[in-house]
């Protein structure tokens, strides 16, 4: 779909590393170039025309996110520098203030480093206890296992909606309902889901949702934290400075503004917010359901073709997303990715920042294909063709 909008695709590459970051369509780049060439200005502070244009776009961006994610108001939309920043803000701005020694947090072993390390650090600081909900034999998370893992001390569940290696789609609507009934806070890492499928903040009873712009056709350096307004009111900023304060005095008195501005100290990534706005509009025009359907169909096709190649091992054939982890038997994943690069097929090798997953899969490193709306059957065919000849791999990589 829409390949003509992506200039990187003119160069005959197969881009299968969308889990890491995605290509950018012309319209996103153009919106940022316009900011840099036609209306450069800071926000909140100018009375001149360029500043008014910029301000308007920045404020509209919050509305676009609200509409996209279906939260209650644009006051619940905080711009951050990415998923990692969003999660750190939740953990050290909210959880640190409200949790106490012995409170339990539920994670899984397939979480990205960004949804584990902040919690480990907080555990070190205030003595919360981290528990890992067991995964099933396909390394996926079942609602049943979530229920079984909840105890009277469980205060938070923090999980990816879609994980970045296995690509399993968690039933966040059911889990959100359970959290609501039990009074558990629910944080969703949407880095791999928000770009690829409809995510409904209200319907899923999410308390905090984090995601990144660069994984959804937008620029690097911008992300979003969506939080229920009453929680954001009770959350402390972790950065302090200009733009976020009402006043401050020599006798140390100060007052902060309200959410979301309270969390956006300093000059925000203005061009990036404008680019992200354009990216979301572009995605909504195509329709998130169409994107998801396209990726799942393409993955099914890829799996059916890969199954015909005897020396390929796949780890997550059945997960309902555009992510596939595999290895060529007896070949180290990085050698495979170097081999594929020789044919301009871009994939990723490694543990994909989910270092604990090795406890579960017994394989530390995999090759990951992650798709997006612009991938097509011809991309898959190229990959299959090259993998079929992989007995010559060492002629290429050595």
């Amino acid at each position, binding site marked *: 779909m829409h390949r003509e909008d992506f200039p990187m695709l003119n160069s005959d590459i197969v881009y299968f590393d969308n889990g890491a970051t995605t290509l950018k369509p012309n319209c996103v780049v153009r919106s940022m170039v316009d900011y840099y060439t036609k209306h450069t200005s800071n926000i909140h502070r100018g009375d001149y025309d360029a500043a008014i244009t910029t301000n308007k776009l920045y404020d509209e961006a919050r509305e676009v996110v609200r509409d996209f994610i279906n939260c209650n108001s644009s006051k619940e939309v905080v711009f951050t520098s990415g998923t990692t920043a969003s999660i750190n803000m939740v953990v050290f701005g909210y959880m640190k203030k409200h949790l106490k020694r012995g409170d339990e947090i539920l994670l899984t072993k397939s979480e990205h480093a960004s949804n584990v390390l902040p919690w480990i650090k907080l555990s070190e600081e205030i003595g919360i206890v981290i528990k890992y909900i067991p995964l099933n034999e396909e390394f996926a998370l079942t609602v049943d296992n979530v229920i079984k893992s909840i105890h009277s001390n469980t205060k938070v569940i923090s999980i990816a909606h879609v994980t970045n290696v296995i690509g399993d789609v968690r039933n966040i609507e059911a889990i959100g309902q359970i959290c609501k009934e039990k009074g558990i806070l629910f944080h969703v890492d949407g880095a791999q889901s928000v770009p690829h499928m409809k995510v409904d903040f209200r319907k899923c009873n999410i308390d905090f949702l984090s995601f990144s712009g660069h994984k959804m056709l937008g620029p690097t350096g911008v992300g979003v934290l969506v939080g229920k307004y009453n929680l954001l009111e009770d959350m402390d900023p972790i950065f302090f400075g200009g733009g976020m304060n009402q006043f401050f005095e020599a006798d140390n008195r100060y007052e902060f503004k309200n959410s979301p501005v309270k969390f956006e100290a300093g000059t925000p990534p203005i061009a990036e917010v404008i680019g992200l706005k354009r990216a979301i509009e572009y995605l909504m025009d195509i329709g998130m359901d169409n994107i998801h359907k396209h990726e799942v169909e393409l993955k099914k096709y890829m799996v059916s073709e890969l199954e015909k190649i005897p020396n390929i091992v796949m780890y997550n054939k059945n997960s309902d997303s555009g992510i596939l982890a595999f290895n060529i038997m007896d070949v180290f994943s990085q050698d495979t990715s170097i081999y594929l690069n020789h044919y301009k097929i871009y994939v990723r090798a490694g543990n994909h920042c989910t270092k604990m997953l090795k406890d579960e899969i017994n394989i530390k490193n995999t090759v990951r294909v992650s798709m997006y709306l612009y991938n097509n059957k011809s991309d898959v065919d190229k990959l299959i063709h090259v993998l079929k000849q992989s007995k010559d791999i*060492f002629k290429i990589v050595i």
Partner: protein
Amino acid sequence: MDSNLRREIILDNYQHPMHRGLVLDDSYLKTNYNSESCIDNLDLMMKVEDGIIKDIVFDGEACAISTSATSIFIRSLIGKSVSEAKNIIRNYQNMLDEVEYDKELLGELVVYDEISRQPNRMNCALLPSRAITKMIEELEGK
């Protein structure tokens, strides 16, 4: 060097590396090596007695280049004195940097003489020399 022969030596050392498998022996120095830019992750252990490298072993998960380079490196260093080892490492580094080096001294390690044409594999080829340097520095109390 003929490129088929080069590939054969590298592949043989990758698929049947020597000295693979760690030992339970406190008299060995130990180091873990993983680089930021790639996903190789190797443990190396080295035993030095009276200034002579008596043994080196390794284990872990790594690509064809770093695994084979580790295997070849280990074989070239066992039996050498620490200062000879440092000299070999220095010449190896020079080879990768494409400056003058002693070909005789490097022996089989010259199979990596063209690796600098693939900048993304330099770190793989440098993994064993960096790991061994780390242990030598530890030994010398640096």
